[in-house]
């Protein structure tokens, strides 16, 4: 354990609740510094992550993250101290070298871009490991704290680090704000952007440069191995909630900061915990929540919606079959569930359940096993039947489908035709047959 971890020992002696309170009131200096740093890096990474995600460059963050290791080590070797400016300079240099190398190898070899990135990523990392293990052999290196860069150690950041992070995040956020419209356009439609004379290449390099910057200021807290998660995961979570670019960026930042602070809190529970893995875990939980429950794109929400729709379709089909089974004018109270089930070729239990849901909606009554439609039910059934016929007619006459092909399409669509469309269809056929 490194000595500089000791300044949040106080947190560990008390119970979980006290720890939580102490963290979230930001009472301790160490917690303050770490939280502010986390906020800085979350804001800058999540902002850039939105563009990285939409340009499908997700692996780039990962590559740059791993690739900074040799630079960090060389930055340390300059004066055998963890001087934030030298480390920053080394890391940036090595990130730029890596991204140039990626581009160069892609242009001049047959290798696909994912292989090139994987190669550069692990190659730089390997060289970095060699340097790191070498540094640990020399006396100044054994307590260098460089290992904190691998999985992140938020408690290791100093106030001087904080200044550097703050200024860099400001640069990143301002650059994105100023060039927002240009960045969105080049990410969406590069050809058009070139056509109207935007400096597409410069914008690409700007984005790469800012990403390298964001990665470099994040590694101390997030660790270089997992730094890419702060770029992609908040942005991907946000993408499941919104269709607006501005909202996307704001949401991503919100997710990044929330997840980051929660993770930071977790990692402070034990002095042996690295920060990165816990932050990535909370970010992943946020994403999982969005993936399942986002109102628009959530998988669980959509499944529920589909299930409701299929229930409705079954219910209304039953309503229609009750209605159609009764010749006009005959009192509708003499159909039994068995008869209905027989006509629909399904189990009586199932029909019974559907009938009860009709009753529940006030469309039918059930007395002594006999089904009768209420007025409301009859009206809905007539409406459905009419929709069905209109659609069928539309398909045969306008789309020219043979009549036997129309059946299935019409069966499903009748339930979802809106009143507007029905009116339009009616008008169309009235005109035709007048």
């Amino acid at each position: 354990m490194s000595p500089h971890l000791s300044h949040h020992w106080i947190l560990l002696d008390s119970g979980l609740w006290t720890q939580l309170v102490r963290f979230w009131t930001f009472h301790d200096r160490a917690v303050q510094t770490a939280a502010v740093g986390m906020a800085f890096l979350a804001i800058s990474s999540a902002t850039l992550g939105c563009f990285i995600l939409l340009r499908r460059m997700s692996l780039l963050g990962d590559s740059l993250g791993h690739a900074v290791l040799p630079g960090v080590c060389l930055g340390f070797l300059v004066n055998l101290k963890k001087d934030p400016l030298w480390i920053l300079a080394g890391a940036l240099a090595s990130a730029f070298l890596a991204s140039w190398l990626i581009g160069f190898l892609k242009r001049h070899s047959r290798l696909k871009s994912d292989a090139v990135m994987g190669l550069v990523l692990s190659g730089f990392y390997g060289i970095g490991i060699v340097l790191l293990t070498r540094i640990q052999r020399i006396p100044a290196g054994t307590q260098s704290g460089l290992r904190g860069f691998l999985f992140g150690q938020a408690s290791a950041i100093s106030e001087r680090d904080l200044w550097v992070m703050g200024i860099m995040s400001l640069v990143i956020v301002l650059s994105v704000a100023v060039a927002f419209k240009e960045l969105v356009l080049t990410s969406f439609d590069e050809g058009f952007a070139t056509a109207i004379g935007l400096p597409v290449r410069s914008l690409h390099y700007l984005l790469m440069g800012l990403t390298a910057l964001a990665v470099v200021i994040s590694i101390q807290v997030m660790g270089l191995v997992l730094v890419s998660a702060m770029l992609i995961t908040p942005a991907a979570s946000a993408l499941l909630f919104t269709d607006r670019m501005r909202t996307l960026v704001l949401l991503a930042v919100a997710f990044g900061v929330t997840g980051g602070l929660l993770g930071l809190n977790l990692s402070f529970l034990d002095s042996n915990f690295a920060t990165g893995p816990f932050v990535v875990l909370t970010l992943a939980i946020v994403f999982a929540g969005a993936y399942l429950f986002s109102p628009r794109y959530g998988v669980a929400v959509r499944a529920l919606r589909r299930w409701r729709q299929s229930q409705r379709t079954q219910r209304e089909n039953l309503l229609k079959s009750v209605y159609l089974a009764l010749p006009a004018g005959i009192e509708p109270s003499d159909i039994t569930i068995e008869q209905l089930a027989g006509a629909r070729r399904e189990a009586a239990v199932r029909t019974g359940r559907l009938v009860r849901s009709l009753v529940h909606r006030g469309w039918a009554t059930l007395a002594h096993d006999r089904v009768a439609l209420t007025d409301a039910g009859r009206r809905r059934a007539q409406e459905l039947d009419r929709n069905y016929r209109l659609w069928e007619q539309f398909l045969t006459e306008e789309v020219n489908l043979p009549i036997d092909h129309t059946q299935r399409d019409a069966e499903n669509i009748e339930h979802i035709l809106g009143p507007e469309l029905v009116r339009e269809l009616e008008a169309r056929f009235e005109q035709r047959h007048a």
Partner: protein
Amino acid sequence: MSSAPATASAPPIEVHDLTVSYDKKPVLWNIDVAIPEGQIVGIIGPNGAGKSTLIKSIMGLMPAESGWVKIYGEPLSRQRRLVGYVPQRESVDWDFPVTVRDVVLMGTYGRLGLFRRPGKAERALCDQCLEQVSMAGYADRQIANLSGGQRQRVFLARALAQDSRIYLMDEPFVGVDAATESAIIELLRNLKSQQRTLLVVHHDLQTAPDYFDSILMLNMRLVAFGPTSDVFTTPILQKTYGGRLTILSEAAEQVAGTRR
């Protein structure tokens, strides 16, 4: 309205001795053509004839190997604002989190210049453009929820927002419904009546003679260019779609072979 053309007498688009290669293989050989003002011009030719390549190299999206392109007598870099561009629909990711209005507003970016935000005037223009393509009700929709025809209309509205003298359109009629197709051609004619010049890549021979005032027949080289009645003839069509092209494409392969 855009600024007046630099030289009144110069044609909207002049292409001189333009040779373009794709992946080191020449796909367009020494194209020479001058597009007259105020016409709807169709680019017609078989698959792989270099139709899109021609449009893209006029727009400066593909580097030319030889020759030059001039817009009203000046190089493109000085005249970009006079040229509107409608790329192929598949060229973008329609899941992108932008609305219809955002996309149309992109048409005003060229005029706005770097780092300036679109304001009220741009928004009004954008609504007006959407009105023209009958998409006003869709302004706040996300683009993923649009049909093929609607997407094409959005692209056209964006081009309208560019308010250019010249429009280059890459296959605007592909994969759209009949209603959209007639709406598009209506729009093109409307633009033409304002003395704008339109260069349209097209692949449907059936409709070509109705749509275009002039036709540019292309198959790796310029086969013919002129008024539709002169050019849209059986011999020229045969020359474009059949003809002895084996030599040209074989030579292109061999040139690419030496360069690799």
